[in-house]
């Protein structure tokens, strides 16, 4: 069941993004930024945690889940150390994904060759 929900929920979140591409003139950068901020808002409203519990990676892998991770991290850090947590919690929780993206990008630049986008 885990896998089915991961597939269906993840797929539907992507369909919403596709509708934004097809029916608005939003660029990919704006859509990704919107998804992360949307994830923070959904998480703050308490709506995203139930979806992660249901769908696992189906909810945490789309960028909405990245926003949820930031919001959850800030919340936990504020619980632990009060106000300074609003600065430390978000990026601490998201650090693995950000660091991995940057490191693998630098490695890719070392070994990769530029090619036509077709």
């Amino acid at each position, binding site marked *: 069941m885990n896998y089915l929900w991961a597939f269906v929920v*993840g*797929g539907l979140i992507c369909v919403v993004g596709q509708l934004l591409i*097809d029916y608005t003139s939003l660029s990919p950068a704006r*859509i990704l930024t919107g998804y992360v901020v949307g994830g923070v808002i959904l*998480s703050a409203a308490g709506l995203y945690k139930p979806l992660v519990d249901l769908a696992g990676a189906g909810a945490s892998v789309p*960028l909405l889940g990245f926003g949820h991770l930031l919001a959850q991290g800030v919340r936990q850090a504020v619980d632990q150390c009060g106000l300074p947590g609003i600065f430390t919690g*978000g990026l601490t929780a998201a650090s693995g994904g950000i660091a991995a993206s940057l490191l693998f990008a630098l490695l*890719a630049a070392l070994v990769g060759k530029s090619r036509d986008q077709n």
Partner: protein
Amino acid sequence: MKLNPKEYAHMVSRASPPSPAVRDCLWAFFVGGGICLVGEGLRQFFLYWYDASLAGTLTSIGLILLSAIFTTLGWYQKLAAKAGAGTLVPITGFANSVVSPAIEFKAEGWVTGVGAKIFGIAGPVIAYGTAASALWGLLYWLQGKVG
């Protein structure tokens, strides 16, 4: 043959192929869902050894590594041409947006080329995501003080 605009629109819709939007959405659904399915497989694997939080982080790192490899080989871009948001919205799309310019702008040097351009999309994503989460943290902290 005289047609009013409504009849003409009806004829056009019957003669044209099924909406590209429907086809785009099917691609986005199956490819995006498929990437999440791979993610769930990785997550269940990591859950054998680690707690949910670390397993989630390792899942992201695993998908980012796969995306970096596919992007370096030029395969991710080919899939993205068909799958649209299906390859954009998952964390693999974020990774692609970092890795792709890293390769592309090597010619402009390692600092102002690679080092700067990898943040073209990741920069706004991280900046506004962090700002939104800090704002929420402030509200949450105030709520704790008042309530």
